[in-house]
């Protein structure tokens, strides 16, 4: 199973992720803090904001127009590393991905 590492404040959590899931859902189902995901993964609320830190970030899909527009509205600062984690599918290729959960989501 691919492993994903989340930095939440000072905490670092690495969890097994199921292919077919998303980086957001994996966090929520493993009780990783900091992700609100109010809309349940529809790129509608911008409350699952993460920063890509390390690992196979090039294996992730490009940012869609809708995600781009939502990222303009995040509460924590938007940076070139910003993504909505609900838009990041888990595949075997993303094994070793490291993300930082944005401090403020809503």
């Amino acid at each position: 199973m691919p492993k994903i590492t989340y930095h939440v404040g000072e905490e670092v959590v690495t969890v097994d992720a199921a292919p077919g899931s998303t980086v957001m859902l994996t966090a929520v189902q493993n009780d990783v803090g900091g992700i609100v995901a109010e809309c349940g993964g529809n790129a509608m609320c911008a409350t699952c904001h993460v920063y890509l830190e390390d690992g196979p970030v090039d294996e992730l899909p490009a940012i869609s127009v809708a995600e781009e527009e939502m990222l303009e509205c995040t509460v924590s600062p938007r940076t070139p590393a910003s993504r909505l984690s609900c838009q990041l599918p888990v595949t075997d290729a993303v094994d070793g991905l490291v993300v930082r959960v944005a401090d403020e989501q809503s």
Partner: protein
Amino acid sequence: MTTTGTLAPGASVVVVGTGQAGFQFAASLRDAGHTGPLTLVGDEPGLPYQRPPLSKAYLGATADGSAVLLRTEAFYTSRDIRVRPRTRVSALDTAARRLELSGGERLHYDHLVLATGTRARPLPVPGTDLAGVAVLRTLTDADSLRVALAEPRDVVIIGGGFIGMEVAAAAVVRGHRVTVVESLDRPMARAVAPAISGYLTELHRSHGVRLLLGRAVRELHGSSGAVRSVELDDGEKIDADLVLIGIGALPNTDLAAEAGLGVCPVTGGIEVDEHLRTSDPHISAIGDCASYPSVHAPGPTRLESVQNAVDHARHLAARLTTGVSAGYRSVPWFWTHQYDAKLQIAGLGTPGDDHVLLGDDTSGSFSVLRFSGDRLVAVESVNKPSDHMAARKILAPGGRRPEPTDARQDGFELRTFLRGR
């Protein structure tokens, strides 16, 4: 700020309802540090789950119900939140502060939260008890519908609201023959402006949905106990082997009403004040079942949405743990997803609003601004998330809002307005 009193540290809190509001309240109450007993009671079979996917992706997915769970079992265990599924509350004794559960067990509370949600509004015509006639409120409903949609069907959807239009989209893209019967002259008429309804009408028709507007249903006909056709008020019969009734929802208020709590005659919901308190100081109501005074609408308001459930829940958890409340004032927002169209709504429109279109409504990416007089009250956006997110900030109480004359200027943009105000 109003001082509302705090829960004692060991106070026992019981939530009736295991939907989004009940779940979020329990999670937020623990996050806020409350350590007393916390119990969620609900009549559904399992753990709290998300409802929005049930009328969309879930219908075509292969994953089981665990895919839509809000949290896994471990979440509740680690926070000492006791979830009691398959449990109906049969009576509420406000004087003794006690619930009676199905099976006779009694459950004491220091504070009770009613998050009882809604049920499907019944269609008052003959034939709705035939096999193949469905509603969609729960995961169990969605599982049944998904099984029914595994084979090609003549699907008739009664009601062109959110759920009806979402299921129409999900069904037609999977090859079913889909007819929607709506009694008003446009889909989602109570929720959105005419331009949005027009866009959705064209979108659905271009995907092959037969959309019958301004038509009512007289009777459902069947043979051997299963539905075969839907008869309209003019006598036309439409072949059907699957009928979904999606004509709205009714708040679950029986428990509250029997206990003597106020129920709003306008919205049908359990009456609460701006701090989400019922007429009994030991009982609050949140989410779809609650009728509250909103700063975003002229009269008593009852909303059916994830946002309303989540924000009510957070507000109440904060009020009970801090003992103060400035009043619930969150901006209402909603979304729906049909085909590739994302419709996002911020604020509350009312019939008779004036409308200003931003962008081109034939382009597939535009917004409609709704004004009550000169006051912006809602923004409805199709594939325009930046407008939606800006609108949510602009509509928050206290800030300056654009007027129709601003919005009609060439090049007007909500996010530019927001930055400049």
